[in-house]
Structures are given as C-alpha cells and as structure tokens.
C-alpha cells in the first residue's frame, strides 16, 4: 500500500511554566492563540488550520494572522463558506492522520456543523471501538459584551459539554490560551476550544515564546480566599476577580476558581475549594437552565453538601435569546450582580 508522503513531527517539548518568565513578550489572547498555532505547526506537519477567512485575512479576529504566509495554502486553508463541511472534512483529515484545527467564525454559526461534531467527531472512537480517532480542535469565539450584531454573542458551551466524546476548553487569559490550545492540539480526542471574544484583546500578559502546555482538565485558582468560592470560566473569570477585589474592601475573602476545562471538569479543585469555604457562587453568561452551572451545583451537592453553609447560588444569563447590543448589558452577569450574590450567600 502506498501510504503517501510521511508527515514529520518533532517530539513535543513539555515546557511547564508555573508563570511566564519575566522577559516574555506581552500578548493578547488573540495573539497567544496565534502563537500557539504557529509553534505547534512548526513542530508538527500534520496540523492543518482551516476555516472561513483564516488565511489571507488572518481570521476576523486576527487569531490566525500570518500563518498563511508562514505555512502556505496546504496547511492554512481558506475554505468555502460551509461549516458542516469544515468539520466533516476535518473528521476525514483526522481519521487519516492529520491534526486539523478548524475555526468556526462565531459560535452562533456552529449549528450547521453540529451534525458533524455530535454525530461523528464525538463518536468515532467509540463506534470503531478505538480503531479510529479524531484528534481535532474546533476553535470558535463565543460570548457577548462587544456589541456585536445578532447571532455573534452566543454562549452555548452547555450544548457541547452535554455531548459525550468531546472535550470543552475555555481559556480566560493569554497564558492559558496558548498552553491550553497546545494541549488541545496534542490531545487525541476532539476538543472544542472556546475563545472569549470579549477579552480577545482586552489585556496583555507575558506569554513565553516557546511551546508549553497547560493541561486539559485542570482548573486554576487565580485568587485564594476563605469565605466563599466563585466558580467561572472565560470572560466571567475577570468579572469574578473584580467582584473579589471589591468584596475584599469589605473584609470578605473570596476564592476564585477558573475551571478552564468544562469537560472533563476538575472536580477535585472545585470540591476542595468549596469544602474549604463552605459557600459557592457559579457565574456564567450562558442561559441559566441546564447551563454548566447546574452540573457544578449537582457536583457540589454530591461531594460537599455537608460542608455547605449556604445553598450554592448562580449568577447567569437569562433563559432568553441573547439580546442584541443595546440590551446585552442587562443580560450579562457583571461585578455588581456577583457581589450581590456573594452577599446573599454570606448572609444565608
């Protein structure tokens, strides 16, 4: 059998920085995503980036800027406008040894591809009893807060967290964005990589030039505290950190858990924190009902009920269609809502 041209891969380095070295360049999340793609593509010829406007335009958020020039049109593919095919073709590439990193331009446009994600990408390993696997990454910006047009602000992570067979990763800062994306690319299973567009360029942080991984399935604790645990991901982590800073002035000590991966969830970090504080508030911008917050509350009930001093509370989007720009501030959780929820939990 002619197996075709071999594709070259260098063994991955597993640089693990607890924090970025001080001399690292300061990057935005969008730049960190781009850097992760470039450094992995450099290492592994099997990686193909594909999607709408990812090549010559460098992505509508510039998260793939410069990749076409660096790696050429066979590895950075501007596709026809067809989400179903972008993911279906990626499945075909993945089962035959490539490692596609597909971009869906906005989460609100993933629906034509849901058939491929849920019916195929998520199930291939199980259906073939491990014979075939789909090591692909599906990147997409998600979430509100940038006054975008209709269908550009959705947060439907729960749809995918609910679907067995795919991992769901959500970075909240540039350092994690790079490390988590590299982990996602190296993962042997399909990973949905949700990029909080509201903070794509909101701030910069040192991000090492070289490759490093942040492991999938591990939460971070960006702030430790003893009175209450705030649990969040993506853009809501910053809201929680703001709320925590405001509460500190009143002597309330808040711990913030950034889940970073929604499937598989880092149950240990989550439960350990809640056991310590005895109080928890989950914050997400997605609709409330059957959101990921509901799963977290269930886990806390299963594993820490007797340590709770108050019912776990949720600050979420409403059970409505995501409002257009002019009313979106009323929909999105904000610092004041989180502070109020924390006070309620403390006063219970």
């Amino acid at each position: 059998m002619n197996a075709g041209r071999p594709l070259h891969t260098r063994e991955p380095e597993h640089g693990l920085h607890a924090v970025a070295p001080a001399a690292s360049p300061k990057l935005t999340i969008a730049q960190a995503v781009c850097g992760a793609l470039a450094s992995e593509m450099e290492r592994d010829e099997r990686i193909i980036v594909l999607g709408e406007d990812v090549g010559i335009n460098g992505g509508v958020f510039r998260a793939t800027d410069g990749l076409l020039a660096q790696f050429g049109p066979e590895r950075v593919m501007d596709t026809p406008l067809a989400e179903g095919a972008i993911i279906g073709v990626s499945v075909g590439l993945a089962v035959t040894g490539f490692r596609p990193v597909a971009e869906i331009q906005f989460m609100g446009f993933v629906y034509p591809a849901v058939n491929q994600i849920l019916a195929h990408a998520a199930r291939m390993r199980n259906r073939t009893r491990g014979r075939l696997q789909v090591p692909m990454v599906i990147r997409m910006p998600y979430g509100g807060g940038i006054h975008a047009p209709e269908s550009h602000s959705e947060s439907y992570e729960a749809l995918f967290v609910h679907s067995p067979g795919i991992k769901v990763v959500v970075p909240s800062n540039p350092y994690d964005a790079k490390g988590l994306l590299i982990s996602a690319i190296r993962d042997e299973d399909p990973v949905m990589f949700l990029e909080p567009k509201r903070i794509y360029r909101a701030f910069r942080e040192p991000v090492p030039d070289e490759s490093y991984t942040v492991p999938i399935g591990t939460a971070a604790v960006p702030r430790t505290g003893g009175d209450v645990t705030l649990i969040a991901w993506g853009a809501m982590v910053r809201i929680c950190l703001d709320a925590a800073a405001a509460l500190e002035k009143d002597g309330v000590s808040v711990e913030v858990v950034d889940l970073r991966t929604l499937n598989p969830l880092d149950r240990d970090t989550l439960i350990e924190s809640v056991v310590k504080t005895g109080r928890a508030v989950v914050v997400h911008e997605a609709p409330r009902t059957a959101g990921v917050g509901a799963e977290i509350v269930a886990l806390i009930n299963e594993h820490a009920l007797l340590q709770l001093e108050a019912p776990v509370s949720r600050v979420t989007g409403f059970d409505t269609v995501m409002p257009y720009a002019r009313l979106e501030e009323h929909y999105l959780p904000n610092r004041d809502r989180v502070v109020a929820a924390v006070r309620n939990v403390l006063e219970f």
Partner: protein
Amino acid sequence: MPRTIIHECAVERLEILGPEGQLDTELMPELDDETVRALYRDMVRMRTFDDKAVKLQRQGRMGTWAQLKGQEAIQAGVALAMIESDWLIPAFREHGLMLLRGVPGHLIYAYWAGDERGASFPEGVRCLPIAVPVGSQLTHGAGIGLSLKLRGEHAAAVTFGGDGATSEGDFHEALNFAGVFGTKTVFVIQNNQWAISMPRKRQTSSPTLAQKADAYGIPGLQVDGNDVFAVYTAAVEAFERARSGGGPSLIEAVTYRLGDHTTADDATRYRTGEELEYWQRRDPIPRLRRHLEGRGLWDAEQDQALKEEAVRWVASQVDAFNAMPMADPGDIFRFMYHEVPPALAEQLEWLEREVRA
C-alpha cells in the same frame, strides 16, 4: 453501447444596458420615462441611506453595518418586478429592497444599532427579518413559496443570498426542495464576488452560479447585476413563472461589493485597488444616470435636487431612529413565548427590580 449525452446544460447571460451605456433596444423592457427615473431615484436613495449608516457607525451611533453599495441595481430592479402580495426573505445586505417593500428606514437603522424592535415590521409588510446565519433564509424562501402554492395565492416569494451562501448546505437543500415541490420561489444570488475575504472562485469551481439551478431541474439565468434593466427583465420572468405555477427559478446577479464586508472589515487586506477601481467604473448608479441623460430624461439640476431630497429623507429616518425611546429591558423576556412561563416571569421580575434599584 456507445456513451451518449443524456443531458446538456447551457447558461444564459442577460445584459441590456452595458457599462459604456450601450443599450440593447430589442431586449429593453417597456418602461415609461417616469418609471425609469423612479428606478434611478430609488437607487440614489439607497446609496444615500447606506452611506449615512456608515457615517453613523463611525460616529459610534450605529453597530456593525453591512453596506449594500454597488448592489443597488439588483434591489431596485427586483423591487419593480414585485407586486404587493409577494414576499421578501432577505439575507443581510438587502436594506434597499427592504425599504422599497415598506420596511421603514429608521427600523433598519435600529436593527443594526442593536435594537430588536428594528426587526418588527409594520403590519402587512411581507418581509421576514434579515437572516444573519449565511444561507439559512433560503429554505424559508422555499417554505413560503410552498405556502403560497398550497394556498393558491397569486404571489411569489423572493429570497436572497450571496455568492458565499451558495456554499452552504442550505442552498442545496432549498433549491432542491423548491424544485421537487415546484414552489413559488425566486432565488436571487447577489454575486458580489466576495464573501468577506474569499473571492467567488474560491467558493466553487463551477464556472457560474446560475448553472447550479440546472442540477435541481429549475431554470437559472445570469444577469449583469449592475444593469437595472437586465435585473428587472429577469425578475419579471421569474416572478411570473412562480406566480403562475411554473415553479422556482434562480437568478445569479453579478455585481460587486464596493464597500468593505461590514464596518468591522478592512477589504484592503485581501483585494486590490485596481479591482475596486475597475468596478467603480461599472457602478450601476452613474450607468443609469448616463442612460437617462442620453435620453434627455435627466439633467444636472434634477440630479442635484434628487440628491438633496435623498439627504433630507435619510435625515428624517435618522431623526425617527434617534427619537425611539430606549427599549424596555423587560422586552428581553416578553416575546420569548406566547405566554411567559413562570420561571421566566421570575427572571423578568428580578431584572425589573434591578433596573429600578
């Protein structure tokens, strides 16, 4: 057995008023002078309305705006071929046609400024709200065309898509469905040659988009989309076919997106200035103006008056838009279901308390 040809497909292209003003008098539709002037007036109004939206966006008074600049002839020509009972199922770049179908301009501005009330059209306006997910509206066009057929209405549904939309599965599904059921649908593809940064040839290796109709067993025609007479003639044919029960058709109108994809885009990243200049010389508005002038139906003074009138009219739409009171945040909930379920009513109450505090 020899191989035999069992099917051949020919693609027709229709041009009536060429870019240099050449006119095919045989093909020229019978339109009285006033109607031709009205076409021009409609196109100038569209352009003025569109330009104003970009200015509002730059001033921070508008959200993202998708310019129709360069595509006016398609929208004016289709509008003229429509009768009151026809339906419009737009994509997101048909503001001009929506205006002509009775959607108030201030509502179009409101929609793009991020206000849901902008998608709530006056009673009797047979127009769906715009569709942001590319291609998704085309099946609605098939559905409304089916509805008109089932009800035996003398009407047709026209649905729009871009060249990029023809790559979506929905395009195939819509045309196929319409073909199978002979729905009263007119599919118009505004082939403006770009889908954000992707040129038309990167969407499909098919030489034309019109020929795709053939595979669904329906008529397809390519027209010069910057030639309002060609668009009108093709549209009349397709609408009459649909209304009279002759089934759906596809019109590929070849035009050019003279603006950026939206105000969030920068087209200089992916296309050349020469290409833009080439198409600026084919701008449908000066083309029609030269034609009118050549026939002695128009002069500089009238043009000046029209442009001033268009600016005043657009200003009135901006005023109406600015005069809209802020929407009630409770509206986030009130239209989710026929009746607001209790759990949602609680969320609404919670928000109302927060807004009051």
